């Protein structure tokens, strides 16, 4: 595996346009299209408390009419030209993805520019997207995965922006006004907040010129509230009653920041506990040995203001208490840092060997490049990353295990778990 671990999977260029817009680029000419991913530090956490869902609703409307094109005309420009443009919002980010054939590239970037700079927010699409979000919220009320995860964030971050639902509430969505949507587009989507990744059939000069034309009109600086770092409230078990045969459990605790020196050791620790599919301890104990669940997994959630380690398991109501006990036991066991040499070696060979698999399509590469810029990992990250995994020693791993797993969990359960009640 050593040779693969040091071979750069793709050549990354840092493109800086004459106007000063930065992007990471991988040129890949074999298929005549490109994928772009972009991120503004402008997500749901910046929504006013009584306007939860504002960024999400704005994202839903940017591609619903802009510049000279009313909603249906704009959608036609996209669909008739096989241009895929979509906006989204999560806790930290306001994001977009663009995919276009080479033949329609100029037009695709022009539509992106119009969506960012001249969104119309006409009454019909505003009411339509509002109705769609309200319908989505109602559907999610009966989705136990959503209910369980929502309960986790609401309890962990009560009083902080991270505790509010990204997609809002029926009440907040009903109240959002056109001028508030317009303000998100005008004030939050600024050059200072922007990161861009591009992969596909385009060279650096061609991209530089498109970057200027597309993004130069954005304001230099954003106007948005100051948000502060926080930590999740841990220790409780909370049951949200739902009339379903199987309980959905969300568990988690404080994670490790993306730019922390222990991040790679934490990646290995999570792989061993619950990130490694059929190779993980949780999968072995919960599913393979006891048949308690179809899915059980964990991951590092790189939220900027409160990094998290999160996981989930789904088990029939009668047996779910046993699954939770096993999760607690395995977390406690790994907190001691006791890891077999074999587990460390296996984690490293998987994490390094599978890295190129995560870079096999233009969409994947664009997303990876975007992540590199958002997290400040540098242009050479693709070459360096496997070395960073390889460099994790036993002591590093033990320290990361202690930091990740020594302490209390917050557990939320949606369902009718037997023998389990909320702790407060």
């Amino acid at each position, binding site marked *: 595996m050593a040779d693969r671990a040091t071979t750069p999977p793709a050549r990354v260029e840092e493109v800086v346009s004459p106007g000063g817009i930065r992007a990471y680029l991988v040129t*890949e000419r074999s298929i005549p299209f490109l994928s772009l991913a972009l991120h503004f530090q402008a997500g749901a956490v910046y929504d006013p408390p009584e306007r939860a869902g504002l960024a999400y609703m704005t994202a839903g409307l940017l591609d619903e009419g802009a510049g000279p094109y009313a909603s249906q005309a704009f959608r036609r420009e996209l669909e008739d030209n096989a241009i895929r443009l979509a906006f989204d919002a999560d806790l930290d980010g306001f994001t977009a993805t663009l995919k276009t054939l080479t033949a329609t590239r100029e037009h695709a970037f022009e539509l992106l520019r119009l969506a960012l700079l001249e969104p119309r927010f006409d009454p019909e699409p505003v009411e339509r997207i509002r109705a769609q979000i309200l319908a989505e919220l109602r559907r999610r009320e*009966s989705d136990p995965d959503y209910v369980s995860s929502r309960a986790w964030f609401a309890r962990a971050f009560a009083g902080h922006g991270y505790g509010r639902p990204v997609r809002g509430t029926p009440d907040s969505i009903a109240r959002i006004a056109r001028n508030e949507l317009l303000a998100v587009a005008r004030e939050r989507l600024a050059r200072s907040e922007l990161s861009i990744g591009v992969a596909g059939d385009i060279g650096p000069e061609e991209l530089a010129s498109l970057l200027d034309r597309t993004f130069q009109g954005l304001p230099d600086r954003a106007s948005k509230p100051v948000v502060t770092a926080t930590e999740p409230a841990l220790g409780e078990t909370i049951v949200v009653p739902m009339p379903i045969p199987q309980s959905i459990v969300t568990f988690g605790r404080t994670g490790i920041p993306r730019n922390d020196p222990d991040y790679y050791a934490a990646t290995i620790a999570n792989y061993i506990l619950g990130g490694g599919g059929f190779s993980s301890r949780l999968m072995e104990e919960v599913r393979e040995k006891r048949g308690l669940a179809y899915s059980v997994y964990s991951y590092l959630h790189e939220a900027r203001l409160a990094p998290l380690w999160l996981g989930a398991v789904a088990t*029939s109501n009668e047996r779910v208490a046993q699954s939770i006990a096993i999760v607690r036991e395995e977390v406690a066991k790994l907190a001691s840092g006791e890891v077999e040499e074999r587990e460390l070696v296996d984690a490293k060979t998987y994490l390094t060997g*599978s890295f190129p698999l995560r870079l096999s399509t233009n969409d994947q590469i664009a997303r990876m490049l975007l992540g590199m810029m958002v997290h400040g990992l540098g242009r050479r990250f693709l070459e360096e990353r496997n070395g960073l995994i390889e460099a994790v020693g036993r002591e590093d791993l033990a320290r990361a295990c202690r930091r990740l797993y020594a302490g209390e969990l917050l557990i939320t359960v949606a369902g009718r778990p037997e023998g389990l009640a909320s702790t407060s």
Partner: protein
Amino acid sequence: MSEAGLIPLTGAVPTAVFHPECFRLANGMEVVVVTNRRAPVVAHYVWYRVGCADSPLGKSGLPHFLEHLMFKGTRTVAPGEFSKIVARNGGNDNAFTSWDFTAYFQTIAKDRLDLVMRLEADRMANLDLSDEHVYPERDVILEERKQRVDNEPQALLGEALQAAQFLHHPYRLPIIGWLHEIASYTREDAIAFYEHWYAPNNAILIVVGDIDAHELRPLAERHYGALPPRAVPQRRRVQEPPQHAARRVELVDPRVRQPQLVRSFLAPSQHADDGGHAAGLEVLVELFGGGTTSRLYRSLVVEQGLAAAAGAGYQPWSLDPTTCRLMASPRPGVPVDRLEAALDAEIAKLLDGGVEEEELERTKGRMLAEAVYARDSLGGVARLFGMALTTGLGIDAIEGWPQRIAAVDRAAVEAAARAVFVPAHSVTGRLLPAEVGADG
């Protein structure tokens, strides 16, 4: 991969897309290779021509159970080790089952292809199951069913709809199986099914990535070519009688907050297409309900403001006749009855007024242009060929797709609409909250 690819909207329609190389091993196993050299990676798939529509009577979903058990060890690989060996070599692996096929795959560095081919060939012939691994896995399937179906009212409605659509054909069975039949699976059931269907002459090897047929052939011959062929039965399924009665299924559940309306029609597949309507239907469904400029979305969602979402879906790859579905979800406060009346009116308008040349050309142009994106994903390409080859089609079904779509004219689309949108062949499904009843 250096040719210009599909030209969007104007220009010549290509006569090939992926340029696969195909050959057959002496034992009857088919092989398809698609070369894509952009990374030193391969996607390795083995497909079996057997799926949940071939479940033994009273054992619905057994093929899916066997799919899980294929990870439970052979004479030389310990239970659970398969995926761990793949992971230790930097690869990802999994499997999936549908009505017509069961497939296993690994994505891995090219220099590990030999290893995964050895492992996959081993479990094709040497599965070795013990009770202590079979029965906990049956519990896993029960949990999988609860997670995917029993916890979700929408999935329960989908099951009822499918079972009502097919009066007789085994497509009426849920892929994962009925709960009480899952509970009845035995180790012997699984082994009998495995011995019946799993043989090289009933399997297809598909490799996509940094490899060509010249490189793959010796590996394929060494690992799969060594396995003896066996007599594998024809897939004989009871066939659907003529349908004369429109059906309605309604799931009223206190868990439901957002109602939904689905209209399913019995439809030809590309393989089972006596009337020659499959290609016309593919274009029709895109024109009528694909995306946000389609007729259904424009009328029900934008212009009338009755629906939050509306669309249509049709997948032409199926061994026997399949379904085409229209769906709509009402905006808050809109009764489902009113939405259903609007859906009926759009169907009537289509049947009475036909389609416009301009909307047809736009639809076809978009479908052909979008096809370029399909070349980007190794696994996606392997899945296209696998689905075609396990549903009675050849590689020309994929390579000839652009020509097939380009040839669809107004008459073909309108004929497909008349042949498929027949009330007597339909099931209407409604998902309703308990507290407000049928008014949605």
